[in-house]
């Protein structure tokens, strides 16, 4: 006799997730984080150097090499994540701005060239081959900083749009993902620059970066809240309320309360490092949750899909 236990479902394949999640796991989580770390650091250093050069130039001088190191690590994660790693250069085979990944690859490549040019100019000065405070090297460095700005901006901007321009459950409804990642990149960059300034004992830079980091940490709640609203139907289906509240509280604690609280107390090296560490942790947790969403939906694919915006 047919009962619920042995009747094939007349609804067939209805209610299952049709799409397949891409093979993006922990490497991509780290890629998104390091992308934000490198672009944010460069953007904040560049803006600081151009706006208040007397204060920020000494700090930015060490910010750019760190940004290049973070970029190389990020590119390493991207290459390692490919199915055929020796074909990584095929990304530069075409320029296709309609594909966020193609646009991002080109932005990252040109951004890396400008960063390398800045480092070359700094190296020339450090080695004493040419003076750096005036003349050709100074102008080349400044032009490289200005030239790198739009490509660093593009490198930060494409990442979130790449995810939201897919058919994956969760990502396809994340209208504010690009905005959140862009805002986070600048927050992380300011925190990194604050740490460098504190280590170098550049107190004037520290005095400007402390309120900047505190303010950006609070402002970051806005795109994060809008993004959480985009994800809400899916998260409600996957995780119980208690788990969602606990994760949200942890993110708020690490991402806003602790950094703002520490910065209000002091601007020393230890505080700056602690602020950077908690911000990186909070952002890592958020990115892990975001990247894992389609995989969790695939695992729970026999549960009905929640209604979504599009």
């Amino acid at each position: 006799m047919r009962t619920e236990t042995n009747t094939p479902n007349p609804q067939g394949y209805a209610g299952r997730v049709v799409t397949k999640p891409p093979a993006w796991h922990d490497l991509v989580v780290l890629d998104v984080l390091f992308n934000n770390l490198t672009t944010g650091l460069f953007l904040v250093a560049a803006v600081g150097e151009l706006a208040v050069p007397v204060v920020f130039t000494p700090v930015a001088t060490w910010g750019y090499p760190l940004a290049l190191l973070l970029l190389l690590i990020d590119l390493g994660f991207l290459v390692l994540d490919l199915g055929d790693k020796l074909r990584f250069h095929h990304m530069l085979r075409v320029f296709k701005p309609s594909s966020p990944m193609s646009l991002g690859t080109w932005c990252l490549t040109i951004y890396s060239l400008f960063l390398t040019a800045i480092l070359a100019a700094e190296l020339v000065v450090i080695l004493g081959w040419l003076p750096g405070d005036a003349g050709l090297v100074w102008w080349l460095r400044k032009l490289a900083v200005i030239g790198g700005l739009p490509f660093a901006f593009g490198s930060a901007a494409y990442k979130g749009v790449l995810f939201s321009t897919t058919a994956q459950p969760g990502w396809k409804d994340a209208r504010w993902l690009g905005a959140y990642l862009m805002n986070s990149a600048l927050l992380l960059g300011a925190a990194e620059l604050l740490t460098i300034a504190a280590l170098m004992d550049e107190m004037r830079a520290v005095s400007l970066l402390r309120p900047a980091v505190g303010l950006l940490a609070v402002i970051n709640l806005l795109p994060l809240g809008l993004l959480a609203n985009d994800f809400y139907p899916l998260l409600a289906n996957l995780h119980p309320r208690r788990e969602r509240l606990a994760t949200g509280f942890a993110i708020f604690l690490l991402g806003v309360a602790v950094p703002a609280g520490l910065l209000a107390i002091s601007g020393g090296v230890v505080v700056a490092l602690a602020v950077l560490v908690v911000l990186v942790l909070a952002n890592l947790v958020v990115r892990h949750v975001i990247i894992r969403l389609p995989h969790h939906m695939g695992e729970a694919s026999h549960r009905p899909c929640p209604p979504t915006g599009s």
Partner: protein
Amino acid sequence: MAIEELDVVRRPQAEDTSPHGWFVALLERLLVPIRRGKRPEPQPAHGFYTDTTVCIGCKACEVACKQWNQLPADGFEFTGDSYDNTGELSASSWRHVKFVEQFPTPEPISQLVPQSTPQRFSLEVLPTPAPVPQTQGQPDWGRWLMMSDVCKHCVAAPCQQACPTGAIIYNEFANVYIQPDICNGCTYCVAACPFGVITRSMTSGHARKCTLCYDRQKDGLMPACAKVCPTASIQFGPIDELRKRARKRVEELQAKGVTSAHVYGDAATETYTELHSFYLLVDRPEVYGLPEKPFNPWIHMMGDYLRTLLTGALTFAVLLAVFLLWSK
């Protein structure tokens, strides 16, 4: 014929005694992907029309596809979906026959016996499990729904729009084709496909899917699956002709009382273009595992970029304000 998947044992290369052998190999690896061949002359668009009402679920299409394209076996696992043990489209399964059993639930035996009949012994030996309630809209007679799923070869394919290497192209027959020597396995196409068609191969690391037997089409042959289908459920030909056949078949079925017959993917919708592999269905698309309203992710792209750029600009403004005002 694709033989990439069989190349599991590296054949020994002839020894290259030239000291520049590695350099030439490196140059080839860098330059060959950039070279462009001569674009073939465009041909009339060809595709598939699948009439699911005559599919008998024989899976000859799956077998022919695997044989022609030399795709490896996927192992065997009972999925619980009737006779569907393929499970899904993948890098090694480019055809997937789906089975849906729709049968009414018979009445419990205790209700079949008239109440007036005297009973010496109770028939309720075991508790009667709850029967599956009759689904509204389902016919009270049983039926099978069988469908051979494949890549939809969309007119504006999100996978092609996503591909950053230019590996995914529209060939001269307006089919979506992945060039296996260009793909580097980034899997952005996998993320973009709203039908869950493409997967990355575990063997080669490249994305793979139905090619609509491009190699056979170039030689004037029909795809292997259409050739072998015993009931002509899978029909191959010029798209315009296939659309006419499909619409005529829908009229025939509706005249015979199959009012739920409709064609899926033959016409563009507000959110998606036409498909060059479309289906005649007799139930909701979701029952067949197809999205009811496919959505092209690129519709939202410009808005997402705008939100990102505005947020970036505003954040910059805040930073500048802090730097300039606090520094005074």
